[in-house]
């Protein structure tokens, strides 16, 4: 018993010569993986148009219900959120919204430094969320792979899409 106590004292003493594991935070920043789940952004497709189609899937998936948005439609046929609001004081950075999103619009980023003195400032509007680039997925453009017709791209013109067939014209 005594031997084991002395051994554990020796083992602890040896830690004096180990490197500290602490990251001296404000001066030193820890490495965060590119897919770290931090502050949420809304990305744009390669042409610079908003990716979000206001499908509400993220809002449904969100466990603490902190996403709120309203759909509107552009004259050119695109769907867009009229407003898009994330309440970061409730967000748990779970990433389920990113999983649910069919258009890669909503993405989590490796940034966690979002303290505020006023709780109200934790509510981010669309202007705060929207970035100018495509985020993690550079080439993806939802309307170029989806069947929805928009201005300049009719049904059947998307990538890997066949011309639509008028079922009534089939002579069976």
């Amino acid at each position: 018993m005594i031997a084991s106590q002395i051994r554990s004292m020796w083992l602890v003493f040896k830690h004096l010569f180990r490197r500290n594991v602490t990251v001296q935070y404000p001066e030193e920043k820890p490495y965060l993986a590119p897919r770290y789940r931090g502050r949420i952004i809304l990305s744009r497709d390669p042409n610079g148009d908003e990716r979000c189609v206001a499908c509400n899937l993220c809002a449904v998936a969100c466990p603490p219900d902190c996403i709120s948005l309203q759909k509107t439609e552009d004259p050119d046929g695109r769907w867009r959120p009229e407003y898009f609001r994330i309440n970061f004081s409730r967000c748990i950075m779970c990433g389920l919204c990113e999983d649910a999103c069919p258009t890669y619009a909503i993405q989590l980023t490796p940034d966690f430094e979002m303290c505020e003195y006023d709780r109200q400032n934790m509510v981010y509007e669309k202007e705060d969320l929207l970035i100018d680039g495509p985020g993690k997925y550079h080439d993806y453009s939802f309307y170029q792979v989806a069947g929805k017709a928009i201005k300049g791209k009719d049904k059947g013109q998307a990538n890997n899409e066949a011309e639509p067939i008028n079922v009534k014209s089939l002579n069976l």
Partner: protein
Amino acid sequence: MNTSIWITLLNIFGVLIATVLLAAILTWGERRLLGFWQDRPGPNRVGPFGTLQVIADMIKLFFKEDFTPRFADIPVFVLAPTVVMATMLIAFAVVPMSPSIGVADLNIGLLFVLAMSSIAVYSIILGGYASNNKYALLGGLRAAAQTVSYEVFMGLSLMGVVMMSGSFNLRDIVIAQADTWFIVPQFLGFIVFFIAGIAESRRTPFDLPEAEHELTAGFHTEYSGMKFGMFFVGEYLAVILIAALITTLFLGGWHGPLLPPIIWFCLKTAFLVAIFILLRAALPRPRYDQLMKFGWKVMLPLSLVNLLATAGILLWIA
């Protein structure tokens, strides 16, 4: 005549200020060392290497609300923390730090120190009782039981030293160690006193009176502000006192080659304090019944064997 009074006053205030300052610095030193032993830096933000942390803590303690619960026994509640600090500081008076430094030269110095460190436990019992809180009371009870059982062989383990030097005077004990430190002939006594010393100062692994996962904070659950600070400083004073006593009684006090005596004394004491902190970093806390069993069934017989063997051998030689 005037100069001798000045020297005495200088001695008194020097020792007083040095010990209180050291206890305060130890609050930082301990956290720093614990940090290093746990692979982290410890408090390193305030001032160079975090040394001003002590001052920051003091400011915090002074400006915190000093809350006294309505249900407490107020006079006792206020008095309790002062006891531990006062007794520990008084006990330092008889510790000889070098041939010229040291406040009092009592011929019963050893008994005086033991008595003072026993009185210190009143602070904890009374603090626990006056808080009128069940956790505090349990902590106080544990402190009482622990002190009663560890005091017994703490005294007994020192009798070997007293027999070999033929004196209760700490200065004479140090002088008797000029050739061999008492740790060599009195190794058993050293071990027993070391363990009893930790138990006396209620440090981990013997900190059952304040075992935080069972008793919130034990006897000082209801204390805050500077009253809590006094318990805290009292504990560190106790650590320094026990380390200084072990140095005096077993490690030859100020004796050592080359360096001046006071430096040797400080080095030895600092080394022992570091070992106390290492113990805290490394060892888990025993269960309460294990603590008692260990005291009565292992330590007490050991100290008795040591006492008898020393007495027998001394008589044989004489």
